[in-house]
């Protein structure tokens, strides 16, 4: 496989192709007849996935650095370049994105009946935006992508969403916008400070990273600006309230993409930018305490609030708050295991929560209700659906043997080394996770089939099976054999941890001896 990829020069053009293909697809959807729109879009997304899949083989798991890099000057007078690359952290974000998009489109097949053209075009454009965020190695480029994908999402929620879609859409937009604009200022301050200090004005990621020390006096402020942008996206408690609204009101595909990919951008931002740029600020004792506490609060809080939601989508939304709390804890615990675990959770959450939203979408298409109370006992009429829903829920709970466990275990086992109390409390989160999901599961697929309108529900259609099969396979595959993923993540994570730890210095005094061993 890798020889074949080498022979077609894959590494040189893959990232550009990934960024361009969806746009081409979007243009095509605008051009073809209305009846063909979704087919074209789906094929485009599928092609995108196939192209991206090559990354799996072409990626060199031994290297911690950037691969598949491409550089071209863009606005040289401002030191802006088109520079993209992939490392172990972003690799799976890309694959997750390209995998999610075709599934999300299939999931919209019947859900979206109005203005299909616009919907699919926006989905494709959004793909480019999201991939751009994950591959950009120039801060300007990153920022542009970061903002650009807001618009398609805003439209997807606002045009094709549910009853309170307007409120949800603008809330989503404004929330994100607040953070990202402050981040823009921080990027500029970094740019100006590094430029002043070194004489080289550039937005290049690695250059700025190398000299980010010059902003040390205001590192806390800059970190704060970056962190706010990312924390909102993650979302970290208490910046999470856009999430339930956006998730609930968005159409299925919107929720899937939101949960599956958009939330990851926040955590990715921390891993790629906020923390490496300002390790001193990020691991300042106060800051790190605050973050860890917020992460743990998010885990417990999200789970508790999820437990009492009457709306299944909202429940899943709050469960995301809980899951992403683990991610934050993992990053801030700063051990190889916990950071890798955070990335694995990001992948898992994308798969599992995305799948849950797809499943809710299937329920909704049949019954036009997301209320848990509207269901009950549907395992009788939809056994396959019930089986898959159960499996996905278990994966979300973090049952060993599913993907969810691998991530949570890594995060907690790593976090326990540096943040034992936080990890200990976070562990109780697994109890609440089981509580809210199993309770919901019981009320939806179990108990008596007492509502006559539920008695005639169809079980999964072949199309729906086609959506869910890859998800089931992934859940089990990652659950039982995550090694290929872990080996690809590990070098980058190791580099991240070492690089961040180095300048953090005294802030990390709480790192135990036993933890130092691994660096040897």
């Amino acid at each position, binding site marked *: 496989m890798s020889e074949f990829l080498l022979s077609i020069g894959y590494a040189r053009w893959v990232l550009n192709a990934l960024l361009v293909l969806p746009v081409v697809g979007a243009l095509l959807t605008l051009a073809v007849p209305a009846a063909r729109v979704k087919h074209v879009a789906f094929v485009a997304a599928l092609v995108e996935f196939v192209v991206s899949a090559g990354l799996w083989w072409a990626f060199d798991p031994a290297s911690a650095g950037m691969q598949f890099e491409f550089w071209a000057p863009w606005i040289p007078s*401002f030191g802006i370049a088109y520079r993209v690359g992939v490392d172990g952290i972003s690799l799976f974000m890309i694959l997750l994105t390209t995998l999610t998009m075709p599934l999300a489109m299939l999931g919209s097949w019947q859900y979206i009946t109005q203005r299909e053209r616009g919907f699919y075009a926006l989905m494709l454009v959004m793909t480019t935006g999201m991939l751009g965020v994950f591959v950009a190695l120039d801060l300007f480029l990153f*920022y*542009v992508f970061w*903002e*650009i994908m*807001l*618009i398609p999402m*805003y*439209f997807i929620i*606002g*045009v094709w969403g549910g009853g309170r*879609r*307007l409120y949800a*859409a*603008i809330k989503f*937009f*404004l929330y994100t*916008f*607040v953070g990202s*604009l*402050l981040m*823009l*200022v921080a990027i*500029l*301050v970094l*740019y*100006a400070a590094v*430029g*002043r200090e070194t004489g080289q004005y550039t937005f290049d990621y690695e250059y700025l990273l190398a000299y980010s020390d010059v902003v040390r006096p205001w590192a806390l402020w800059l970190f704060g600006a970056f962190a706010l942008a990312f924390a909102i996206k993650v979302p970290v408690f208490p910046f999470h309230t856009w999430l339930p609204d956006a998730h609930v009101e968005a159409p299925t595909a919107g929720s899937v993409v939101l949960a599956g990919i958009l939330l990851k951008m926040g955590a990715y931002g921390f891993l790629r930018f906020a923390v490496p740029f300002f390790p001193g600020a990020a691991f300042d004792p106060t800051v790190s305490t605050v973050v860890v506490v917020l992460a743990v609060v998010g885990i417990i809080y999200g789970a508790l609030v999820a437990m009492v939601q009457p709306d299944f989508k909202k429940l899943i939304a709050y469960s995301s708050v809980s899951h992403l709390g683990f991610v934050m804890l993992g990053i801030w615990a700063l051990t190889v295991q916990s950071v890798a675990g955070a990335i694995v959770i990001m992948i898992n959450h994308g798969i599992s929560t995305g799948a849950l939203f797809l499943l809710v979408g299937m329920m909704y298409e049949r019954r036009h209700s997301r209320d848990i109370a509207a269901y009950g006992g549907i395992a009788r009429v939809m056994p396959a659906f019930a089986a898959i829903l159960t499996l996905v829920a278990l994966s979300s709970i973090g049952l060993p043997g599913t993907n969810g466990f691998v991530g949570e275990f890594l995060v907690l086992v790593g976090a326990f080394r540096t943040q034992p109390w936080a990890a200990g409390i976070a562990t109780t989160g697994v109890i609440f996770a089981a509580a809210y999901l199993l309770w919901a599961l019981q009320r939806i697929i179990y108990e008596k089939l007492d509502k006559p309108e539920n008695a005639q529900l169809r079980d999964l259609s072949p199309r729906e099976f086609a959506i869910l099969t890859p998800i089931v396979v992934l859940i089990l595959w990652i659950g039982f054999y995550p090694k290929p993923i872990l080996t690809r993540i590990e070098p980058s994570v190791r580099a991240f941890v070492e690089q961040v730890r180095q300048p953090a210095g005294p802030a990390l005094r709480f790192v135990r001896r036993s933890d130092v061993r691994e660096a040897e």
Partner: protein
Amino acid sequence: MTPMLIDLSAPAGITLALLPEIVLTAWALILLLVIGWRHGDPEHHRWAGGFTLVGLVAALGTVVWLWRAGATPDGLPLMIALDSFRWATAAVFLIGSMAAVLLAQGYLGRERILVPEFYVLVLFATVGMLLMGGAADLIVVFLGLELMSLSVYVLAGIKRRSPQSSEAALKYFLLGAFASGFLLYGIALIYGATGTTNLQAVALQLADSEIAGRPMLTIGAAMLLVGFGFKVSAVPFHMWAPDVYDGAPTPVTAYMAAAVKAAGFAALVRVALTALGDATAAWQTTVWWLAALTMIVGNLVALAQRRLKRMLAYSSIAHAGYLLVAVAAASIQGGSAFVFYAFAYTLMTVGAFAVLAAVGRDGESDLLIDDFNGLAERRPWLSFALAVFMLSLLGFPGTAGFIGKWLILVAAVEAGQTTLAVVLVGASVLSAGYYLPVIMAMYMKPSERAEVAEGARLARGGRLVVAAAAIA
């Protein structure tokens, strides 16, 4: 390329240096002569518009020619400057004027404002703007500003049937004249403090820091700022703007919001950076506060508007605040950021008003944002254009507005004005609170109007503007 040296003390040199202005004036005179006996007929009217456009294009041609030829003054520039700032701003003004004329061609006919003098006045106003952007002397700034203002006062009131239009003209005129008094006083005091009105000579004097700190100069600078603050509608001198923008015919509003304001800024930037560049202490803090206040107040009040035209008026105030940030940066980057932003802003705001003009009729000022509900169903391209304008005004990446804002932010941050940059982005967030509802209304709300809005067709020229601006 050898620069073209122009002797500004010889008549020939002056003629050459003022070529664009002379072209425009000549055009205005010819037009005036022609319409003297050919007016009242819509056909003639359209012809006058076309003729004006040709004149503007010709002037633009001369500007480009002089720019490419590298016209440089032989010695100290007297009265008129020859530098890229002048050419760049001139291009912005000329394009803004063209957009306004294009917009007006269909609009005036539709609203039955058959006054071909409209175009003459636009030409005169444009001359005034060019002089403001190209002034090398405070007197020229003042005269250019008055020339522009007087023309625009009349333009604002040109829809004589409409009491709103007249009221707008009156408010604009009274407050404008009042502000001119302050401006003039400022010029007088700067003249008193430095003994000259030539911008570069003033700068030479102020290189002596002892003079730069004198009260006469600082008061003069403050008075100048009051005067310019009015023209650019900086808070608290902004209060005329919403009323006037609201009452004036839409093409005139677009013209005011874009070109007229840009001209005010051009003059401000010229005076602030050229003449008072070494006396930043006298004005930077003040501009800082003006910028912050303008951004915040403009955006906040815009949030409370329900009528699109008025909302755009307040948004234009907010944008003045953004431009003031570029001024407050007090740097070359600030200047170039200003030029770019002015250009982008001209396009997007003219575009937005063009859509407004296309959707509404009879003054449009009563057009609520709710009236746009479901517009995307009925007129997809128009809605798309308006959505693009809104995003651009919001400063969203992928639009010219973003690049402009980006440049301003870079300038501000590099000048150490980080707090102001933060205020700017905070204000941008506020602005999302009123730009987005427009998009929401068009795309996300169902149409309430049963009738199929077939009428109110956009004139060909207007469409051209929309198309051009949408590319931005």
